[in-house]
């Protein structure tokens, strides 16, 4: 049997079933928590703990198998394909959210205002006005269909303030990560560590400012109940913030692995996968900054 055919398959692994149980408990608990069931929160927390345990255990096992040298080029290819399909799902994820932004802003909101010969809504609902900065056109005290009172902000985030600063921070993190990548390919270990620490610090700073921006926006009344603008704003920036958080965790793991000497100048797929993910998250934010705040 040639080396190419000797595909490594771990026998008797228990991680998939542990992961399935953890994720199922997480979602069942979350759904019941949303419906006010007493045990919902506890089951959700337990499911989360089991999922984190599974990730530590499973990923740790894969790392140990990788550094023990039992993976061949075929396994390497399967990792690369796995990463690519994960990225594909992420691209589709964000494409749907950007699609929702464009659809609401360019089509459905103008239609509600009577564009393209649709029914002119003010005739159906007295006093209705439309506009993308929808919050500005909302009458305070409007009650949504769900019975929740619509929140009308008194002011919005200044584009030139925190959003611009955060964009700069994230773009700089792309630069420092590129320097780390270059240092890794050149075999300069100390430089990699320095640039990676800088990248992580910039990511953490981004998250800190994002939390601050949310605090300001929420305090000023921009909430999920602030019409289509409020819900789209929090959906897009919230999911992006979640991705930055995951990226920071992944970069921290890579930093730990570099300190342990897991990567060489020629063999560092783990670093490449995480680096590409970070560049992707960076580009998504640039798109958000330009399309939400500018175009």
């Amino acid at each position, binding site marked *: 049997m040639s080396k190419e055919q000797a595909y490594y398959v771990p026998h008797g692994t228990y991680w998939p079933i542990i992961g399935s149980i953890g994720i199922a408990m997480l979602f069942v608990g979350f759904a019941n928590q949303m419906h006010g069931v007493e045990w919902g929160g506890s089951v959700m927390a337990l499911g989360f703990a089991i999922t984190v345990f599974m990730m530590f255990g499973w990923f740790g096992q894969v790392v140990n198998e990788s550094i023990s040298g039992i993976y061949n080029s075929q396994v390497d290819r399967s990792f690369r394909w796995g990463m690519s399909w994960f990225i594909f799902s992420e691209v589709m994820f964000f494409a749907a959210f950007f699609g929702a932004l464009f659809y609401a802003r360019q089509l459905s909101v103008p239609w509600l205002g009577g564009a393209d010969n649709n029914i002119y809504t003010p005739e159906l609902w007295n006093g209705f006005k439309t506009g993308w900065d929808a919050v500005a056109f909302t009458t305070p005290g409007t009650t949504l269909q769900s019975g929740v009172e619509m929140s009308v902000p008194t002011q919005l985030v200044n584009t030139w303030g925190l959003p611009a600063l955060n964009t700069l921070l994230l773009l700089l993190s792309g630069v420092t990560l590129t320097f780390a*990548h270059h240092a890794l390919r050149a075999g300069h270990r100390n430089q990699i560590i320095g640039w990676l620490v800088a990248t992580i610090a910039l990511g953490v700073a981004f998250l800190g400012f994002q939390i601050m921006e949310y605090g300001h926006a929420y305090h000023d009344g921009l909430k999920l109940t602030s019409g289509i603008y409020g819900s789209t704003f929090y959906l897009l920036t919230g999911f992006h913030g979640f991705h930055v958080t995951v990226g920071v965790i992944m970069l921290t793991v890579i930093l730990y692995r570099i300190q342990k000497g897991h990567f060489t100048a020629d063999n560092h797929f783990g670093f490449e996968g995480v680096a590409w993910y970070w560049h992707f998250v960076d580009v998504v934010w640039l798109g958000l900054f330009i399309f939400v*705040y500018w175009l």
Partner: protein
Amino acid sequence: MGVFMTEVLVVLVILAIMVALGFGLLGLLKGGKAGSDRMFKSLVIRVSLSIALFLFVMFSGYMGWIQSNIVMLDAPTKQTPVQK
């Protein structure tokens, strides 16, 4: 520079950034020395274009070639929002 031209240019650069990122992904998928080189070069192009685009957008905003979507910085009763 007019609003339309500025917006077209911004969208074109965003598309170029996505193409560079896509080439980086192809390099990651390919692997080996050639794939690694392609990935690194593509990501350098992506970072350079991104920073250039950010600076251009901020400069365009400063020059008034484009206006921020979010113009309402005071209470709605104090300032009328500008319709785009």
